[in-house]
């Protein structure tokens, strides 16, 4: 290996120790920890496709007469923003696929954030010391929703223009400052001539910069605090068990970025999203029925539909009807979301560090509350399509609306009760949710019957072993680094074995071992009772973990 560049950088920045530790960083390995990655990769794709779009989009509300290649709008007067979106879609190579990827990535981005947030919530990963990251993540969600709405508004088509009109009314509804805020933001009365350019600079500059900064902080804090992990074999509050950053995790995470991009590209090329050419340019007196916002705003739209026609007037002032569902509700929602770690602590009085995650079924009350809250917002989300549902199921719109007004309160209670019952029962059953093993009844020669748990399906066990190994051990370089720090002699004898060890080797070893049950040609010593494979410890194992502590509740395999 050419050491020159490493030397060059280290001489100037002294990075060797930090980068060594980073390369050897251990990431707990669980599929649910990939959800945040989906969000992050979607964000990168949004940045990339977004930059492409800015090269062709013209955020101007000045009007132009369209004579482009989309003939059904030939001769129409429209804003430059809309016309340039048409050109981008029909006359720029890969323009439409990029535009659609951008929009799909936004939908996936926010969905991934939400699912990631739910994972963090239900597993209690927001507890000390991770409250700061919970707050940053919550702010990222809010910014992402605002960012999505702004982006949806930019093409200035009929559907999004109606959305801006509603946004204007919502800003107008804020007590005391509403009319000033609306007038300042829109540069006067709706629609004005500045809202699209202003949305544009907020959309491409302000919020992305904020999000990039917060995302950086989110990751840096996660890196510094180290990831949480589920309870399990060898896992304690004081260690991290998983795959090494270099190369396994780097490859898996890097590959996952491409897979995310691949799925979004498939959506972008094969599924039409926001066909603004069919919607036509925004003209204030025109309107289409069945106008909905993108899904992440659906709960707000649903709330606007369900909230009764209550408008409070008195003392010469008015609190408009839209204030409650469109300003107060999101305010309370995000306020409670951000403050949740402290709210929960108020009840649990839990001031301890938590690096091991809860199993959702073990924390009955948190799970129950979470399920109720999700249900509430899901009902609101479905309420945003009352008209579509009424049409689809051929029932009266009025009936649908009233059903939702009832359901928004009743359904969360029902799901909460169900969630409570299920979690309560499941938490009382040891090993619930684990793969079941057959019970084998043995009859001895004397006629005595005994029941024994079968060892499980051998091929599944084998596969699991091959992929997830056995006893956790320290990375050899880290082990040596520790020894050097302690001034102990350093041996490098397991380096060769480490360099070639892969799941294939472990699998092959297991396969080779099976028929004879004894030694293969290259039989390698292994830790007693577990498939340590080639990683079996030769030297000391200073970090050999205490199984009892970790397995107290969850049980070992």
């Amino acid at each position: 290996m050419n050491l020159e560049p490493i030397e060059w950088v280290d001489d100037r920045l002294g990075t060797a120790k930090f980068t060594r530790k980073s390369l050897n960083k251990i990431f707990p390995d669980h599929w649910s920890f990939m959800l945040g990655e989906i969000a992050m990769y979607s964000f990168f794709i949004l940045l990339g496709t977004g930059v492409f779009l800015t090269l062709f989009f013209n955020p101007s509300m000045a009007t132009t007469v369209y004579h482009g290649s989309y003939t059904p709008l030939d001769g129409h007067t429209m804003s430059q923003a809309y016309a340039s979106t048409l050109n981008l879609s029909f006359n720029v190579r890969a323009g439409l696929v990029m535009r659609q990827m951008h929009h799909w990535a936004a939908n996936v981005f926010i969905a991934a954030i939400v699912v990631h947030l739910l994972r963090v919530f239900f597993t209690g990963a927001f507890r000390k010391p991770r409250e700061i990251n919970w707050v940053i993540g919550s702010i990222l969600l809010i910014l992402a929703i605002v960012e999505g709405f702004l982006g949806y508004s930019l093409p200035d088509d009929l559907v999004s223009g109606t959305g801006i009109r509603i946004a204007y009314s919502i800003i107008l509804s804020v007590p005391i400052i509403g009319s000033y805020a609306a007038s300042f933001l829109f540069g006067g009365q709706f629609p004005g001539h500045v809202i699209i350019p202003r949305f544009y600079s907020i959309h491409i500059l302000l919020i992305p910069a904020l999000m990039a900064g917060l995302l950086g902080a989110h990751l840096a804090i996660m890196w510094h605090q180290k990831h949480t992990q589920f309870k399990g074999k060898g896992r304690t509050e004081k260690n991290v068990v998983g795959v090494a950053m270099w190369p396994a995790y780097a490859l898996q995470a890097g590959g996952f970025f491409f897979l995310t991009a691949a799925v979004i590209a498939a959506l972008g090329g094969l599924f039409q999203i926001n066909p603004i050419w069919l919607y036509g340019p925004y003209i204030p007196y025109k309107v289409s029925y069945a106008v909905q916002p993108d899904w992440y705003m659906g709960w707000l739209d649903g709330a606007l539909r369900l909230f009764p026609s209550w408008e409070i007037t008195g003392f010469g002032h008015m609190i408009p009807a839209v204030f409650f569902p469109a300003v107060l509700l999101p305010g309370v929602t995000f306020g409670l979301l951000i403050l949740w770690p402290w709210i929960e602590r108020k009840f649990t009085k839990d001031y301890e560090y938590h690096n091991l995650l809860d199993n959702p079924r073990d924390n009955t009350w948190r799970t129950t509350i979470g399920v109720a809250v999700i249900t509430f917002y899901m009902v609101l989300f479905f309420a945003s399509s009352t008209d579509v549902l009424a049409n689809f199921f051929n029932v009266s719109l009025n009936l649908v609306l009233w059903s939702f007004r009832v359901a928004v309160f009743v359904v969360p209670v029902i799901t909460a009760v169900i969630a409570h019952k299920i979690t309560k029962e499941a938490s009382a059953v040891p090993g619930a949710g684990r793969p079941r093993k057959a019970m084998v009844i043995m009859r001895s020669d004397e006629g005595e019957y005994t029941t024994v748990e079968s060892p499980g399906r051998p091929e599944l066990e084998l596969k699991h072993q091959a992929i997830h190994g056995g006893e956790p051990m320290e990375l050899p370089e880290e082990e040596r680094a520790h020894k050097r720090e302690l001034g102990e002699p350093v041996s490098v004898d397991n380096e060769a074995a480490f360099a070639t060890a892969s799941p294939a080797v472990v699998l092959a070893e297991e396969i080779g071992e099976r028929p004879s049950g004894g030694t293969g040609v290259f039989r390698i010593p292994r830790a007693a009772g577990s498939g340590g494979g080639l990683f079996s410890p030769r030297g000391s194992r200073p970090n050999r973990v205490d199984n009892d502590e970790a397995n107290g509740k969850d049980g070992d395999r």
Partner: protein
Amino acid sequence: MSFHKKTVGRLLVPVALGVAASVAGMALFSQGASAATLSSSSVAKGVSSVTYGGTRGSSKAPITTLKLNPSTIKLGHTLFVENCSSCHGDAAQGTSRAPNLQGLGAATIDFWVSTGRMPLADPTAQAAIKPPRFNRSQTLAIAAYVSSLASGGPPIPQVNLGAASLSAGEGLFSTNCAACHTITGVGDALADGVYAPSLYTATPTQIAEAVRTGPGNMPRFGTSNLSNQQVADIVKYVKYLQNPNDAGGIGLGHVGPVAEGFVGILIGLGALMIAGYWIGGRAH
């Protein structure tokens, strides 16, 4: 990475399959694209020489009136008595169950009968589009009979799409029709159990008839509100919406962000979560 000869041989099969699949996919999609190009070029024929709001390229009248043959009135009477009179009365004068049809014009009769809405199965619900009970000549015969009872009402329009402007149609459609039928023509539920139907199965004559006669809850658009030319333009745009330019791929029913949200979450995030499930570990 080095491959043995045998490996290379084995490689070729899946590679060939992959390439074949991509080529087939491209061929499939480019076929769709060429269809789209075709339709847009046929569109271009109609409007290329004209600008929005100007003349429409054809000197023919945009809408002509279908002359009904008086000799079919007798057949129409027979059909009417057999199928309609129990509700609308022997001379279409109306009863307590159904309205008077006299003076409503041939277009009204033709619209309700040719879309299958009449005869009606359930008088309490909004009449739904069904396969029509009568063939074209029978329908026209009934229209001839009813319109022979009293004068008035719009005649059956025949739309000359060659004389219509697609882009003018878009402007008129979004102003007058999209508020109920939605901007993509897919239709939606209105208040109190009625709905604006989907426009995807309507024929040019039926669209023009609906505009002129205002069936059910639909407002009427007379000649001083929308000229014959404008009605023809709208018809042309509605016909376009029945097979629009879905350049972006699968149209998802043209119902907008609701369907898109489901696809984004279920297919997009769903596929990625499955990938994540493969990449990441499971519970230990």
